[in-house]
């Protein structure tokens, strides 16, 4: 079913486009906007956005698939992204991942049945100084260990997401 962009979105898009000399430069900010609205960028949304920006569909799809921060399928309420690059890896990221897998009963790329959690492993989050790092939605949780991880999961299960205290 073809997706129709909302008037609200179109109004925002017009403002974003106005900030750039060329319309196609607005592609990434508008994809982010779409993801903010729905939590992910659906295939139909790429189609609609391509038509809106007068870009070939393949161009939009290429950008969405290039950047791993764009979700191409619905994600849970909390998107847990564990950094797996070298600093985090050496500081214990594999243990965090294993614990999350075990406690949530899902592996990377999957979402729990209650729709609460999606687990991903991601490339460097740029916070090596406080490894290992876990990103939940748009918040960083740094220097994670088993205790802080369990506490964080507990909080989220109760609908509270607050920056961990160190």
């Amino acid at each position, binding site marked *: 079913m073809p997706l129709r962009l909302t008037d609200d979105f179109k109004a925002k898009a017009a403002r974003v486009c106005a900030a750039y000399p060329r319309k196609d430069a607005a592609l990434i900010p508008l994809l982010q906007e779409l993801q903010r609205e729905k939590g992910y960028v659906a295939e139909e949304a790429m189609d609609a956005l391509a038509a809106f920006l007068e870009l*070939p569909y*393949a161009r939009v799809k*290429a950008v969405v698939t290039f950047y791993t921060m764009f979700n191409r399928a619905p994600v849970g309420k909390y998107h847990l992204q564990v950094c797996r690059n070298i600093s985090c890896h050496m500081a214990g990221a594999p243990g965090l991942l294993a614990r999350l897998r075990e406690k949530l009963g899902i592996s990377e790329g999957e979402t729990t049945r209650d729709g609460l959690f999606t687990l991903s492993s991601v490339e460097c989050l740029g916070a090596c100084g406080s490894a290992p790092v876990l990103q939940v939605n748009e918040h960083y949780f740094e220097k994670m260990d088993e205790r802080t991880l369990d506490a964080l999961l507990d909080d989220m299960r109760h609908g509270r997401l607050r920056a961990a205290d160190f």
Partner: protein
Amino acid sequence: MPRITIDGRPIEVEKGVTLLEAAQRLGVHIPRYCYHPKLSVSGNCRMCLVEIEKAPKLVTACSTEAADGMAVLTMSEKVKTARRDVLEFLLINHPLDCPVCDQAGECGLQDYYMEHSLAKSRFPAEDKVRRQKRRVLGPHLVLDNERCILCTRCVRFCSEVTRTSELEVMERADHSFIDLKEGRALDNGYSLNIADICPVGAWTSRDFRFKQRVWFLKKTPTVCLGCATGCLTEVHHNENTIYRVVPRPNAETNTWLCDAGRMTYKAVQAGDRLAKGVIKNGLIDLEPALRETASRIDEAHGALAVLGSPWLSVEDNAALARLAKDALKTADFSFDFSAEQGVKDGILINKDPAPNAAGARRVQAAFGGTSFAELSAKVASGAVKVLVTEARAAALLKDALKAGGARLIVFAANRSEIPAGAYATLPYASYFETPGTFINFQGLERRTQPAVTAAEGVKPLWAMVNKLAVYSGTSLRLESAQDALKGIDLK
């Protein structure tokens, strides 16, 4: 203008010329995958790395403009090592498909491996990234993503030449692959060029796949007769069978070749190819067919007309003019075709589907004759009892023929070309089988060269005309195509 040296040889080039182009002018071939002279520079394959003295790192020759005083080295140890290493990278995930790959023999990876690497792989075959193979994408192409080296020539072709932008590189790093919208076909009228420009076996032609190994193919330079553009082409054939037609890039008309033009060779070896004459609907041998045709012509007692054809060569049109003037002794003949000409899609395909309207006008200039409108009116009035023409040209007079009821005698190469109601049809050799002169929409002379030989008894059209004239009692003395060209100014 920058003066540089390449491997010690000095050269002066205009501003903006890249090192790769400058080297080409000196006859130095720098290996490349992603660079294509008619596409934008991408610089992603890294195969064209060269050394510049006093520069800290190697640079890509395809994207570096020559600057005054550069001393470029294309064969230094550093460059050789770089080429070997780049090839190693490109081959890490390349499947060992060569024995079953259609590109083998004209593959950039094979060629450069032999030339620049010859190193044994350090990566086990079972660790190679696996991807989808044999994806049929559109009417003409098959994509094998495993073989792809992501040079993006195909992506740039679709966005810059056809401007259809179907293709893109999806995902990133070693997940990347070429893809297009799900459910969409790659059918932009020029898609087979992608199989040509693909430096590896990722894109192959559905028509050509597995028909013939490329090293068996013989190549004949000729001309595409698909429309008035008159692209230069090369016919690849073996043992009297044509396997494919590819473009012969040139500055005047074409770098590419459209899909329709590439398929024109199909008619030559189609099942309905005529080797005999046809009277009404029955096939009969050539000699009786000629005799029958000649007696119908004699019966008409001068109420005859001849129409040339923009699909025929200058020689064959001239032979038809001689037939009209010297054998049939009629003034009702026309070689006046004035279809609108010009490239209609901004790439190659011409508004005029016939290749030789300009050539036919040269014949008109040499032999005279009436205008097309006059001839058409005369045929419609019923004053013409027999009309001699070529099969596709007969369609131009369809309504007039219906009104006037003239008997139609046509020359045709394929049975499917014969217009309904034709009384007699005589076969002739196609321009893949016989030389012919054509004049394209720019007024450039285009000559076809035979790639294959015609079936026994099938002769060029001028020779058939010569025979027909003999049967009706006149000798035109056409012994060769050159005889037919006499008195015609091709310029």
